[in-house]
């Protein structure tokens, strides 16, 4: 199963999580771009570092018109606790039931029951503009996202 590629239509979704209910199309109404960060498991070491990093860069993302949404198969209660513990101000949503249904649509659901560590940037038209799947144990950092967003905002 391959991750959605650049140019694909990004499937809309509505999921509960750390910020109540989050609908992708609603977030796209208020932002030029959404950085969708699929991650394997809340509270695991690499995921925690990765999402902490996105919180650190959030101001910069926001400046470029982008908001982050984190997605994993954990339940909304887990996402709430995870976001609270790490002071994550962006929504972290629960792709919990049916388990991994959104990850499946984006082509990033693994056979071991977790989502891949995958990054997408979706534009306000709902089109995937950036797509990247990291090795599971590698924190992909923020540099690729920043570079991609800079190129997009320069063209816009």
């Amino acid at each position: 199963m391959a991750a959605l590629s650049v140019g694909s239509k990004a499937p809309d979704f509505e999921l509960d999580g750390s910020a109540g209910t989050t609908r992708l199309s609603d977030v796209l109404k208020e932002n030029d771009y959404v950085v969708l960060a699929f991650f394997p498991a809340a509270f695991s070491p690499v995921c925690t570092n990765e999402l902490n990093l996105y919180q650190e860069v959030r101001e910069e993302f926001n400046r470029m018109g982008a908001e982050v949404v984190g997605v994993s198969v954990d339940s909304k209660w887990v996402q709430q606790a995870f976001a609270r513990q790490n002071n994550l101000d962006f929504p972290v949503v629960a792709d919990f039931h049916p388990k991994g249904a959104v990850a499946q649509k984006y082509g990033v659901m693994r056979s071991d029951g977790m989502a891949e560590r995958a990054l997408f940037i979706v534009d306000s038209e709902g089109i995937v503009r950036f797509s990247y799947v990291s090795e599971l144990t590698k924190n992909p950092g923020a540099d690729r996202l920043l570079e991609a967003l800079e190129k997009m905002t320069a063209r816009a």
Partner: protein
Amino acid sequence: MTEEFAHWLKDLVTDADWSRGPRDGVVLVEYADYQCPSCQAAFGTIEAVLDRIGSRVRFVVRHFPVVSIHPYAERAALAAEAAGRQGKFWEMHRRLFEARGALSDENLALYAQDLGLDVERFKQDMEDESLAAKVKKQKWQGLRSGVNGTPTLYIGELRYDGRVNETDLRTAIEAELSKDRS
């Protein structure tokens, strides 16, 4: 380290950096957060490696305070910079890691006093906006270079994704040293 994960240091080492060791040595850059337990643990490892092969290594420290989870990290970075203005950056660097998270402003002033600094000047420098800007800039440069958490090390100009244990780190630096000679 595969090509896909290779991250280059976007901003190379200059005289504006705090560095130790020979200027023509192999460059080891650490992006560090003084409140980060992993950095505190890595401190001893890095020092042990430098004790052994430091005569051929230029060690550089840059700040990467992860402020959303480490509320003292930015102030601690400023303390290191303020101590640097009185010629004691490396002494404060050590002290901040050895403090294992005891990094309130009161603690920082005590450490400054212990190191024999002019404490009033130290406190003033900690409020200096140019130092705050320097810390922010280093963090931003780190983000652009692929720093994805702390500590992140670069050996030469390439990110070191190995474990920060003495053997692996020493092996990686020695590999770069031998490359340098060839």
